[in-house]
């Protein structure tokens, strides 16, 4: 005899979007439940500030609901949502730009050579050595040292796992620019984190 227990039907995003477009708030809430963690993390890493991250989170979902009619099913709902959240996050940064030292663009230029200076081995498993709040703060501070245009490429490609093409589309960049910025962002972050995590 086979197990006849009921299996929960997991609706895909597009089915939920269709229901939400037809007026179901519950369907939209299910989409919120699916992506709220990721959008919060994205907002936190883009803005570097928990209050701004909460604003980004709320604004992104509000705007997503209000503009759901403009969503076309030829892209993933999540990619569309990420575009909204990134724009909200970058807007927050622009508002604060005048009183911050972090540049919006890369002042070195994309062709400038990156020479690694920190060449010592890292302590093994820094995530086990440092307290969680401490490591979150270290990662956030390191990310904030990057120009936002690099940071967002890194976050979308490496953390949110968007493809190069999706990242290029969200940020209105060419795929070549995404690859170049990802390379630089990874090395710049590594350099920053090395100052904290190197042995000795």
């Amino acid at each position, binding site marked *: 005899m086979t197990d006849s227990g009921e299996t929960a039907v997991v609706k895909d995003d597009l089915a939920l979007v269709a229901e939400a477009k037809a007026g179901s708030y519950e369907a939209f809430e299910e989409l919120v439940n699916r992506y*709220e963690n990721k959008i919060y993390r994205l907002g936190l890493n883009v803005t570097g500030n928990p209050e701004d991250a909460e604003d980004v989170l709320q604004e992104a*979902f509000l705007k997503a609901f209000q503009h759901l009619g403009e969503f076309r099913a030829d892209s993933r709902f999540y990619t569309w949502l990420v575009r909204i959240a990134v724009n909200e996050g970058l807007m927050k940064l622009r508002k604060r730009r005048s009183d911050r030292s972090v540049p919006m663009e890369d002042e070195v230029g994309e062709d400038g050579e990156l020479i690694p200076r920190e060449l010592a081995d890292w302590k093994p498993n820094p995530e086990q050595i440092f307290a969680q709040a401490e490591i979150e703060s270290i990662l956030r501070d390191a990310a904030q040292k990057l120009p936002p245009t690099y940071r967002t490429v890194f976050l979308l490609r490496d953390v949110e796992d968007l493809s190069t093409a999706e990242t290029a589309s969200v940020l209105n960049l060419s795929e070549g620019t995404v690859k170049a910025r990802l390379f630089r962002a990874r090395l710049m972050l590594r350099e920053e984190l090395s100052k904290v995590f190197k042995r000795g």
Partner: protein
Amino acid sequence: MSECKNCLQQISEYLDGQMDPELKKRLEEHLVFCHSCKVVLDSTRKTIELYCDGKLFQLPVAVRDRLHTALRQKLKDPSRC
């Protein structure tokens, strides 16, 4: 030194697993004897892993509650916005 420069340029592609097999083989041969490049590769990989760690940057319960309250108030109310 120019081997190291080439290696550095290719680290990103190597981590993405998108390298030409011949270039990949040459890079891996270089990594066997070049400690500096190996450190850069390993720590870059670890950098990505740390930012992807699902245990970090969790949505606080209070923030989640405020999100759902705000959305319900603004979106479920027919006179919204």
